[in-house]
């Protein structure tokens, strides 16, 4: 049994002051689907626990002019039910729907998915694929925006400062004609961590040429990262079986070069190739929004 001081403010200002004074000795509780098991297993021993679920400013999806803001404590269920996200970012909706089971989706939050930065995160790769920005706030510096890709240091580690709070995720609304695809492979159909997942967003010219593409595999790399080398192979080209096969080969080459050969590579390398090819072809076959 652990003991810690539990603080549950209603206002962001109070939350920021609380962590500013306590820094590393304080942990933040959002959905708790990662944090509570860590506390129970005594993997972490915080002196202070800040509950941010009562802070209204952190909750919900906002349709802004040319971007969408998803509050940090927006749950996966709320994401699935959000009209705005269904309209602009079906990729994130599909990813959120693949998380755990109904109970976990009711508790787990998008902010928690980012902060935990687990290699098998389901929603985080989608945020990276969409070039999401993190809205970080602190008592000292106020509000700052950083690209999500810039804070993911390595598995379970981010460069977000201990006096900073992740308050929201901002994503530019997609250019007309953007399409996306998501697939998750788990050991069972619910309550399963991803063995693999893949998030793809792309756009084609009227003549079929790929004019924008973003590819982020999950559960194969230490952190979610765009596959720039693969994307540049595809950009400005028309999709052909030869091109997609070459891109698939490049994708696993990048993964193996970065993550190395592991016990799971024998399975994951060919299967990632297969999943990439079929998600690509599925997205290419789709009519644009």
């Amino acid at each position, binding site marked *: 049994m652990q003991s810690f001081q539990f603080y549950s403010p209603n206002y962001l200002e109070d939350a920021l002051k609380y962590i500013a004074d306590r820094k590393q000795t304080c942990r933040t509780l959002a959905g708790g689907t990662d944090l509570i098991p860590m506390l129970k297993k005594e993997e972490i021993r915080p002196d202070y626990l800040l509950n941010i679920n009562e802070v209204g400013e952190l909750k919900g999806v906002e349709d802004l002019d040319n971007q969408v803001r998803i509050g940090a404590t927006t749950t996966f269920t709320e994401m699935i039910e959000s009209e705005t996200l269904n309209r602009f970012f079906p990729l994130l909706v599909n990813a959120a729907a693949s998380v755990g*089971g109904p109970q976990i989706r009711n508790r787990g939050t998008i902010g928690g998915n980012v902060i935990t930065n687990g290699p098998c995160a389901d929603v985080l790769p989608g945020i990276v694929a969409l070039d999401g920005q993190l809205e970080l706030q602190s008592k000292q510096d106020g509000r700052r925006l950083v690209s999500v890709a810039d804070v993911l240091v390595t598995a379970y580690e981010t460069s977000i400062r201990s006096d900073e709070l992740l308050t929201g995720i901002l994503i530019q609304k997609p250019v007309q004609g953007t399409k996306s695809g998501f697939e998750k*492979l788990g*050991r*069972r*159909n*619910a309550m399963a961590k991803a*063995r693999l997942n893949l998030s793809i967003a792309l756009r084609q010219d009227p003549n079929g040429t790929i004019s924008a593409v973003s590819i982020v595999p999950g559960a194969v790399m230490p952190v979610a990262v765009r596959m720039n080398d693969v994307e540049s192979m595809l950009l400005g080209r028309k999709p052909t079986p030869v091109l997609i096969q070459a891109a698939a080969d490049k994708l696993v080459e990048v993964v193996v070069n970065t993550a190395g050969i592991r016990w799971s590579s*024998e399975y994951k390398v*060919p299967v990632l190739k297969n999943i990439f090819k079929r998600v690509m072809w599925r997205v290419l076959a789709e009519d644009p929004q």
Partner: protein
Amino acid sequence: MKKRGIGIGSMFYGIGYGFSRQDIGAATVEICEDGSVIVRSGEVDYGQGSDTIFCQIIAEELGVDYAEIKLITADTLTTPNAGPTSASRVTYVTGKAMMKAATEVRETMREVAEEKLGMQDLMFANGQVFSMSHPEKNISFARLAKATHLAGRSVVATAWQDITTKDVDPETGQGDAYSTYAWASQIAVVEVDTETGKIEVLRVVAAHDVGKAINPKNVEAQIEGGVATGLGYALEEQILINKGIVQNTTLSEYMVPTSMDVPVIESHIVEVPALEGPYGAKGVGEPALIPTAPAILNAIANAVGVRVTALPANLENLHRLIREQENNNKDKS
């Protein structure tokens, strides 16, 4: 590519311990003065529903309402040793002991009733004891219980049911190893994703000879639970041990099927009475899961042509077998 296949698994299974191992069920039935019934047995219901079955048997034999029965089980102070809940034996062995004990107290009560009503053709039903030829000659079960108590007659009976078999011939292995056998066939329809090794079980049809379904809903539930267990055994469940230490000690790491993995299960109850069982009933608990894995593995073979010979048929194992087959086919051509 997704490929579908159909497979059949069939089994027979010895009920009880067999092979001369001691196998005795026991129950005590006591009639209280107010007509309520206390039943005691060492047999534990760990979720399979034997308490329900026991109360049904007692209610049937005494003609009393199910709700009038107070059942005390698995209490070493007060209950007779009935042997373990295992070997799919509980209904078959202890269910029969229940029936015997209830019959014994009923026959004592019948003698008292015959004296009181002056009739021989008495029937116990709906909380009443009445003459079949002259229904107006009757007495309530509760009043008869009181009368039996006042007459100083025994209102308690303990009965044992012994199904211990002879051993088989040690030279030839031949003989009647078990008191009875359960039989079952299941058919599974699966879809195999050849690109990932993922298997979706789309449907299972299960036909089980249970002798007599004392509670058909309970039998269906047993079959459904067995199929789900067999599905997990076939596709995912695996204890991972490293240097003697189990690595997956929680249900987030030891994968059992979720409701999203278990398909529609169509149960068919077949009733071929077992001579020694209560009303012909025999066990279904373990038989329900035995044919499932073979049916699924046969369906996989039917879908993609590979034989899984080591469980579980999880993502990695099935994908490896499919690739090995592809490579073999390439070598041949």
